[in-house]
């Protein structure tokens, strides 16, 4: 027994539902008790599907357990056949039905349906959602894919299938569009995308393409490996997540097809330049923690390190099936991979590492919120806001643009961070100031006397560094001082000097005031004149 408050993955039959719902003419008859229909709302609410998932539940109840549950299953299958007229049927058990040991496969066979029936064995007490999806897609391929005719018609362009996208997949809809465009530009036609929006007839034709593109190994790899064994159909090993990986993916596709490699990136590849622009300098060495499914974690680590200039301080996954890949990946960044489906372990590790940015799932978003750490979502499980209306791929060059924006946004933009640091003591920006868009709440006198340094609500720690040697007008943030303390031997400002001080840009005025006062004190000057001000400037600019 395992104590669980949160689970990263659902049971395996939810994975099977993701495959069935992705396809257009498959129906899933699920031997399940009343209540398991809750899973429908993942599709109708989170993914906002305008149709019911193609699943019929037998809905057995306690009084049925006496012995006629098998008959109940046969009735449900018969009725689903008559009502939905699918081109293929999936049959299987949910966790409870697995215990009562009816045999959906055998029962369906006895019905002698005229369509292919794929019996699913999904061990609910050992496996989870992604495994269920992978197994279902693999079994569908095994049952449906036809051997291509030996005399394949010669095609003008090479063709491929895209394997892995499913219902309830994180950004699967837009990734498919992005990668299809990329392949088309390279000169490759996409024959079949499966399981997402594929029909049974589409799956039957899978072996006719020249190669397979595996977008999501968690769901598509087992089928791709089988297609390679059966039909010598190669598949791509690179997942095109990030600019570098997308380029590697293009190289791989060109090597598989013999097509020429494009000389340069397309005109929409902005992320690379954005990361190089000076505003991104502050991203250098930001400490990032990464958690999610294996594919997105491995890719995110590479992007974070090589494309964003972050430091990966920890990573992990809940995908036990791909633990080895994630461990290998972690080694490259000199960290230990955390393989767990217990969010408390993830929270503990984040707590210990105190990263500056977390890339994770919905769960890490909440951990981050509790700890006040910026966070971006990179992987399922996700909530409704991560099935956006707008175009938002993760893959390909547009995906790299989306990732750049998504990851940088929660961090304060560099310029913004810099300016706020500089203005920290200004009357408009100090910690106690009301936001300017809400109108001023301070007395009018303070507004008309900008030369008076406003009191700072929370004292800024004055750096203990030696006396600053930079010029009066400086952008050094840390060294901006608190307003002059009222000391007994404090020099007084002449009206002219006060006026001159007012000409200095407000964001460094406080520092100029402090430096001048310190200079006056050191020199034993009682009244600060305009001369003193510039003497002080010259003194500190040595």
């Amino acid at each position, binding site marked *: 027994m395992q*104590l*669980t408050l949160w*689970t990263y993955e659902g049971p395996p039959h939810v994975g099977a539902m993701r495959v069935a719902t992705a396809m257009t003419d498959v129906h899933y008859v699920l031997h399940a008790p009343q209540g*398991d229909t*809750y899973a429908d*709302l*993942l599709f*109708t609410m989170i993914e906002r599907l*305008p149709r019911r998932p193609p699943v*019929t539940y037998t809905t057995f109840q306690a009084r049925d357990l006496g012995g006629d549950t098998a008959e109940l299953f046969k009735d449900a299958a018969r009725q689903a056949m008559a009502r939905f007229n699918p081109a293929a049927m999936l049959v299987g058990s949910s966790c409870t039905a697995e215990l009562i040991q009816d045999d959906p496969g055998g029962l369906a066979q006895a019905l002698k349906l005229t369509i292919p029936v794929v019996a699913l064995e999904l061990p609910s007490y050992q496996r989870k959602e992604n495994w269920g999806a992978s197994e279902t897609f693999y079994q569908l391929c095994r049952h449906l894919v036809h051997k291509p005719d030996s005399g394949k018609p010669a095609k003008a362009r090479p063709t491929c299938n895209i394997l892995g996208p499913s219902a309830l997949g994180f950004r699967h809809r837009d990734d498919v569009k992005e990668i299809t465009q990329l392949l088309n530009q390279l000169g490759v036609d996409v024959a079949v995308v499966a399981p997402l929006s594929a029909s049974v007839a589409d799956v039957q034709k899978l072996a006719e393409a020249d190669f397979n593109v595996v977008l999501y190994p968690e769901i598509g790899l087992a089928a791709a490996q089988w297609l390679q064994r059966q039909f010598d159909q190669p598949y791509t090993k690179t997942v095109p997540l990030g600019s570098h990986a997308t380029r590697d993916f293009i190289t791989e596709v060109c090597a598989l097809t013999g097509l020429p490699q494009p000389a340069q990136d397309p005109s929409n590849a902005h992320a690379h330049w954005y990361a190089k622009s000076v505003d991104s300098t502050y991203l250098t060495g930001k400490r990032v923690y990464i958690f999610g499914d294996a594919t997105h974690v491995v890719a995110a680590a590479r992007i974070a390190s090589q494309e964003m200039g972050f430091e990966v301080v920890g990573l992990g996954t809940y995908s036990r099936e791909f633990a080895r890949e994630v461990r290998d990946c972690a080694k490259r960044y000199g960290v230990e991979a955390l393989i767990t489906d217990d969010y408390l372990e993830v929270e503990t590790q984040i707590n210990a590492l105190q990263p500056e940015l977390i890339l994770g799932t919905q769960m890490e978003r909440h951990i981050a919120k509790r700890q006040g750490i910026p966070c971006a979502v990179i992987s399922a499980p996700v909530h409704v806001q991560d099935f956006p209306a707008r175009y938002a791929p993760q893959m390909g060059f547009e995906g790299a643009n989306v990732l750049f924006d998504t990851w940088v946004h929660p961090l304060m933009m560099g310029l913004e961070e810099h300016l706020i640091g500089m203005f920290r003591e200004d009357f408009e920006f100090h910690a106690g100031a009301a936001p300017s868009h809400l109108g001023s709440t301070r007395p009018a006198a303070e507004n008309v006397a900008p030369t008076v340094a406003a009191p700072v609500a929370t004292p800024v720690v004055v750096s203990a560094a030696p006396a600053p040697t930079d010029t009066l007008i400086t952008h050094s943030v840390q060294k901006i001082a608190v307003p002059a303390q009222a000391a007994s031997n404090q020099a007084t400002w002449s009206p002219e000097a006060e006026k001159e001080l007012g000409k200095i840009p407000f964001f460094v005025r406080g520092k100029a005031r402090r430096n001048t006062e310190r200079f006056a004190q050191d020199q034993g000057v009682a009244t600060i004149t305009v001369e003193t001000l510039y003497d002080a400037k010259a003194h500190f600019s040595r």
Partner: protein
Amino acid sequence: MSTVIPIRAETSGCTDVVPLVERGQREVFCGLTGIIWLHRKIQDAFFLVVGSRTCAHLIQSAAGVMIFAEPRFGTAIIDERDLAGLADVHEELDRVVGQLLARRPDIRLLFLVGSCPSEVIKLDLSRAAERQNQIHHPKVRVLNYSGSGIETTFTQGEDACLAAMVPGLPASAPDTAPALMVVGTLADVVEDQMRNLFDRMGLQVSFFPPRNSQAMPVVGPNTRYLLAQPFLADTARALQSRGAQHLAAPFPLGVEGTTAWLQAAANEFGVATEVFEQATAAPRQRAEKALAVQRQMLQGQRIFFFPDSQLEIPLARFVHRELGMDLVEVGTPYLHRQHMAAELALIPEGTRISEGQDVDLQLDRCIADAPDLVVCGLGLANPLEAQGITTKWAIELVFTPIQGYEQAADLAGLFSRPLKRRLKLAA
């Protein structure tokens, strides 16, 4: 202004209705879902489901973002070692409960909640609860009930939970005067309003479930109880066996339902008419005024209820009598005739009432009827909207405070909002 709305129907209404009983695929939640509002109510209780990953996933999906605020519910997931008999399930449970209570020392009441898998493998949770009681006594009390889908539908989970608490309620002293108990989870704000109304009538009232497990209400032959919720068949039976007497009334939804519900208590305890009037007149008039606005929007609209929570019949009575809506079909997962008697009498004769579900057939009927508004679960709502049918998702009616005078217009607003939205977006 009007006095008490007379509770008498022109005809016998649907008292003798023969519902359309259907068996087939049901698009409903299981009783585990009740945990989501029960744990909010009883603030020092923890609900530990003994079940599968599916159960954990269900609660997580239903709880939405609530899962992250250190919720007081969780799942002990049964794994293959438990099934193969490799691990002693009771020892495993000891370990998990120990782990849990060490983590949450503030917990005083622990529910072991049965699920379909635990029921099918015949895991004896009542024995397990006894054993845990011995281990953790006196700091923590451990009870058990089943929220499994094979036995309970959605709100029936609350029924099972409350029924499990009844035997442990302290007995009232035998010679005390009759006292009132309100049974069924109400939002705290509603509970406070009701307490206030009873106060003004001079009635002492206790609420069950309580907000804290250390403040359980007393029960005995002098207890008179009002049901605040329609889904409490087993709880009522358990209270009856402790000698408590049920006060028959409609449920406190809308002005009429609330007044009749309060009146039932007032009659039992001999509250003078003028005292009752004084206590209820102001909020009643306020609610009637607020409802009049909603009525303009909803009058004559045809409504169809899919089965979900057993609240459907009282809700249908409210929307028909107070908002002027026409009832196309009123589906309920389970029809308890005795508890529903006062409600059925107020439903117009000839209304199609269905019990149970065959969802495909019911959808066929719904689409053929082309109602103006359909009350249904989240699995059906968007697919129906996509077909041009306006829906109101039912689960909100369970999570939102809807009982009593002050909430009557809010309740009406839940029905009018989708229709308003449709008009706005079409314009």
